């Protein structure tokens, strides 16, 4: 579910970075003010735990594939929402930098999708009310699976929205969502089950470890602020996007259909995807390539000559860059061997 920089536009990436930074600063300030220095090593070690836990694969029953713990809900249960959000952010940052698991521009999106929805939405609004003060195993499993599934579904929706608003991929939001959501529902349920199993194991050995019941009213403020900020920023970005690119997604639709009428070849894949999209009809406003009568594209159609020279130029420049890189390396080696 990690988004790559390749599919994110600077506008969307920037907006999500701003939202995530705001939440991070808010969470960090509250923690620093709380003046409990036990949390520093605890949060650090738990971040490392989630990282290590994600490397432990287990078999998902029913499917043939394997999965691993995401960790957001578990962290929230152990640390509370703010600290858990920071811990998730640190895990995602290490993954992005060292494992190219998610881009740097998209890091804001990824932290938001995987951290905000689990720690600030699913945990306080679903897990806490469902679990109550001292849940028995059954209640724990219920609360955990519902919260984890919801968190992951919301995160998946976030990915769909951010990808669509970026306008790099032609995949329509409806189709994308239809592909993402069922998978992430299953992943979310599994995450909930494993989280519950871990919480039960820990509770048996060390019951005092689980997050103390702090006043829910205080926990809602970062949530409300986060949602409001994100909504405002996304709304602004959406409006900006719409104003600079009046066709927006229609533009990509038009691009996709090349400005030609619906006589564009409809492959079987097209038809299948169209049927899926019609069946789910999640975002019925968004058209599907080839279905809507495409308006004249706002962008000039590429001429054969211009694009050929573009390609040639690109290859030449790339070769020069590579040669420069190789030359630089060889020069350094020769200098080093002297």
């Amino acid at each position, binding site marked *: 579910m990690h988004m790559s920089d390749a599919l994110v536009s600077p506008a969307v990436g920037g907006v999500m970075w701003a939202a995530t930074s705001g939440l991070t600063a808010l969470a*960090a*300030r509250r923690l620093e003010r709380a003046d409990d220095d036990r949390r520093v090593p605890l949060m650090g070690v738990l971040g490392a735990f989630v*990282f*290590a836990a994600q490397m432990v694969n287990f078999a998902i029953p029913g499917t043939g594939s394997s999965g691993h713990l995401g960790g957001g809900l578990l962290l929230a249960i152990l640390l509370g929402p703010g600290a858990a959000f920071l811990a998730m952010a640190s895990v995602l940052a290490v993954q992005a930098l060292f494992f*190219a698991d998610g881009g*740097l521009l998209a890091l804001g999106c990824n932290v938001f999708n995987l951290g905000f929805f689990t720690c600030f939405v699913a945990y306080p609004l679903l897990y806490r009310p469902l679990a109550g003060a001292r849940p028995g195993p059954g209640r724990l499993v219920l609360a955990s699976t519902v919260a984890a599934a919801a968190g992951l579904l919301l995160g998946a929706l976030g990915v769909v929205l951010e990808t669509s608003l970026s306008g790099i991929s*032609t995949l329509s939001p409806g189709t994308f969502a239809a592909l993402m959501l069922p998978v992430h529902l299953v992943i979310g349920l599994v995450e909930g089950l494993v989280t519950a199993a871990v919480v039960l194991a820990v509770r048996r050995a060390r019951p005092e470890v689980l997050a103390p019941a702090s006043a829910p009213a205080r926990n809602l403020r970062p949530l409300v602020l986060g949602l409001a900020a994100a909504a405002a920023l996304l709304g602004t970005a959406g409006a900006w996007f719409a104003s600079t690119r009046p066709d927006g997604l229609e533009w990509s639709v038009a691009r996709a259909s090349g400005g030609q009428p619906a006589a564009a070849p409809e492959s079987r894949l097209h038809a299948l995807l169209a049927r899926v999209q019609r069946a789910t009809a999640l975002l019925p406003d968004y058209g599907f*390539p080839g279905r809507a009568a495409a308006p004249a594209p706002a962008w000039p159609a590429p001429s054969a000559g211009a694009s050929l020279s*573009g390609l040639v130029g690109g290859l030449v420049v790339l070769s020069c860059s590579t040669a420069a890189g190789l030359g630089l390396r060889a020069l350094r080696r020769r200098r080093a061997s002297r």
Partner: protein
Amino acid sequence: MGRIEATLAHLGSLDELARRDSSATRLDPRVKLVATLAFVAVVASFGRLELARLAPLALYPLALAALGDVPWRPLLLRLALAAPFALGVAAFEPFLDRAPAVTLGTLAISGGLVAFATILAKFALTLGAGLLLVATTGFDEVCVALRRLALPRAVVAQLMLTYRYLFVLAEEAARLVRARALRAPEGRRLSLSGAGTLLGQLLLRALARAERIHVAMRCRGFDGRLPVRRAWRLGPGDAAFAAATLLLLLAARAADLPALVGGAITGALR
């Protein structure tokens, strides 16, 4: 090699690269960090069909890799292994966009293929830049650079401790997994409940370790902060690197260099 061991080895090798002495590792970490972020933003700013215009930007990672004497093969391997999620989404492009975007004589290349290639190129460029950043800058230096660039203290402390202890915990996880595997029937993968027990064990150990670390911190006067000091001073090399990167990014963004070059060549050929 088990998955955990492979992960640790990869982290270790990137770490090792960053500890060597080269022009790239001697550059100020703040400059490298800002340059990387700017580079990524510029790459992301190109449209889905602007494949050719990405070409000049390849100079940045190539030059940085050369300056840091970073071996290409492990980096390319890591890129290839990186989350195929983005590529999965990109793979739809050739099917969704069949209108010709480029024609070479009688050969027509669809917009979808170009878009797919563009996404791949962006993927390689942005992720390559990120990997090169950590291959030429120790993670501790990245953290200090972030702090100097006004990231909150609690966030930097979190990053440093997570990085420090993931090695310790990953090794413990590997031991637990190995111990369990030695007792499990041939080839049986870890079940859901087995995972819960194993991860529960790992978590209990982590919690105990966190308490011991806290005690050790208090015994040496811990007051809530993890102070790191580095004597960094910006030098002419940093200025040159920053200027060159800025020039490259502005030029690539402002002018369609490949079109100019290509136009000149195809014009001369006529």
